[in-house]
């Protein structure tokens, strides 16, 4: 069974990639995730300068959902240089560098520095829902802002493909995607976390997260992700690759994402539910499904729901 996917000229030996924000803050942790079967790695969001996150509690889960308001902490460009430089010395899988900034100009400036580190893709986080107190509405919530950031990053990204990470928390994700596509985006990551949501401790009558609200991930958000992937795929006529992310727990979830239009599958929160081996498990389950269904290459599944299919 061939699980490999070639996206924008980069070959992933399987379609699972570590989603941004989870686990991956060092080169050694990226290698560990790759050793657990991930076909690719996405870094945590990288800032040009040091950025502090929120106090704890920052991440909480039930069996249905996870809320996080980590607040995108990062030590800045020096650390990115050190860790990505280290990873590139013994590169096991493709590396997607996720970048974030507070202004359109700073997205460009951050991209300039990160491009020098030669990641396989740039993923542009314009959709974090838990830093609104600090920065206001995410860039991904406006056609104009999303387009402006895309242009700023594309102007300096050279040959490195630029994926825009979109927010599900908008009226029409398709129109945002179309605007980014017109601005030159090479692909999309769909979706960032949902909400934000809130959880309250009953006895103390206080929101549990120090930030009060946090982005929702985990199994409960999967149907929202599937719909958003389908919307983005349709609005861009299936021409731009999509990294589908949001609530994938099993191989069948991953197949569903491919059918909606994804080429790669982001996995993050599932680590809390199935352990570090989730990447290998999802791949095994995809293989088993494909063998039963007579699917030879998973690349034929991408966007399958949008095409007519003769009944069996």
């Amino acid at each position, binding site marked *: 069974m061939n699980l490999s996917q070639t996206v924008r000229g980069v070959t992933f030996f399987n379609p699972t990639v570590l989603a941004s924000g989870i686990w991956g803050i060092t080169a050694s942790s990226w290698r*560990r995730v790759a050793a657990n079967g991930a076909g690719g790695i996405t870094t945590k969001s990288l800032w040009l300068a040091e950025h502090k*996150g929120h106090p704890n509690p920052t991440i909480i889960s039930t069996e249905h959902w996870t809320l996080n308001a980590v607040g995108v902490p990062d030590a800045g460009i020096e650390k990115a240089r050190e860790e990505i430089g280290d990873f590139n010395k013994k590169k096991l899988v493709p590396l997607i560098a996720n970048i974030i900034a507070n202004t359109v100009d700073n997205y460009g400036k951050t991209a300039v520095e990160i491009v020098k580190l030669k990641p396989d893709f740039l993923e542009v986080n314009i959709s974090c829902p838990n830093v609104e107190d600090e920065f206001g509405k995410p860039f991904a919530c406006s056609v104009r802002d999303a387009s402006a950031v895309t242009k700023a990053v594309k102007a300096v990204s050279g040959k490195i493909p630029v994926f825009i990470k979109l927010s599900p928390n908008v009226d029409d994700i398709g129109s945002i995607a179309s605007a980014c596509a017109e601005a030159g985006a090479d692909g999309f990551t769909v979706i960032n976390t949902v909400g934000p949501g809130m959880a309250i401790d009953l006895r103390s009558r206080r929101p549990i997260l120090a930030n009060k609200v946090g982005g929702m991930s985990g199994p409960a958000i999967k149907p929202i992700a599937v719909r958003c992937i389908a919307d983005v795929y349709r609005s861009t006529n299936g021409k731009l690759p999509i990294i589908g992310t949001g609530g994938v727990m099993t191989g069948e979830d991953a197949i569903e994402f491919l059918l909606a239009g994804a080429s790669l599958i982001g996995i993050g929160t599932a680590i809390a539910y199935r352990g570090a081996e989730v990447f290998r498990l999802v791949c095994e389950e995809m293989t088993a499904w494909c063998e039963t269904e007579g699917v030879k290459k998973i690349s034929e599944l991408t966007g399958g729901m949008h095409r007519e299919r003769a009944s069996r």
Partner: protein
Amino acid sequence: MTEILRRCSRSSAQKNLPRTYPVAGIRKETTHVHTFTFNVSLGAKPGQFVMVWLPGVDEVPMSVANDDGKKLQITFFAVGDTTKKLATLKKGDLVGLRGPFGTHYEWKPKQHLALVAGGYGAAPMFFAASEAAKDGCTLTAIVGARAKEHLLYLDAFKRLPRTTLSVATDDGSQGHKGYNVELLAELLKSKKKPDQVFACGPERMLVKVSDLCFQHAVPCQLSLERYMKCGYGLCGNCVVDPLGIRLCTDGPVVKNDLARSITEFGKYHRDHLGKKHSL
């Protein structure tokens, strides 16, 4: 429907969501060290930790000092912003708990265990000792601190069966003058060589315990501390080089061969931003 309700209830299975409990008892151990008791069990084993939440302030990881199936205790040193505020709480005030997380100490019945405790590491070491004593283990507890007034849990250790207690203080105000690891070194050279060594305390002490046990070919288990946010393997803040493992999940209690393959052990740790700081 019953099944759905059962699954949806906030059962102990939902250990990743904090819940507040009133402080049921407060014991002042030393000037800066307190033990809080909560009337709840999280089913914690010795060496595991819980995330302790002070609403409106912060949430920090703490080793469990005891969990007997009915009550849970934490012993903490009021050293940081959160623990200093925690130390001002009164009986009945609410503290959030979630967990337990991570690995725990492991032993076999009737083994001879040496337990090396530095500073407030005495609390989880006593938890391990009291549970191992129930399994018929013979115990040598080696408790160290800067000075007499910082020694913890000595009376508790003395009450355990088949237990020998040795004490070391840096200034010699009680017991051996010097480090507790010097007493461990003597024990490992003696005829009473233990089957296993457990240790909890400052990292410099752990490095010495690791080296001594390696030299004398005695298995040991060490409790390593790194900055924690989620406690269950998502945030990645507690990853260690060069293995990339998460100490909240693959630790905090690690066997010596694993500890010795962590090259940052005894050298540096990372802060909340992932930035390195030398020890």
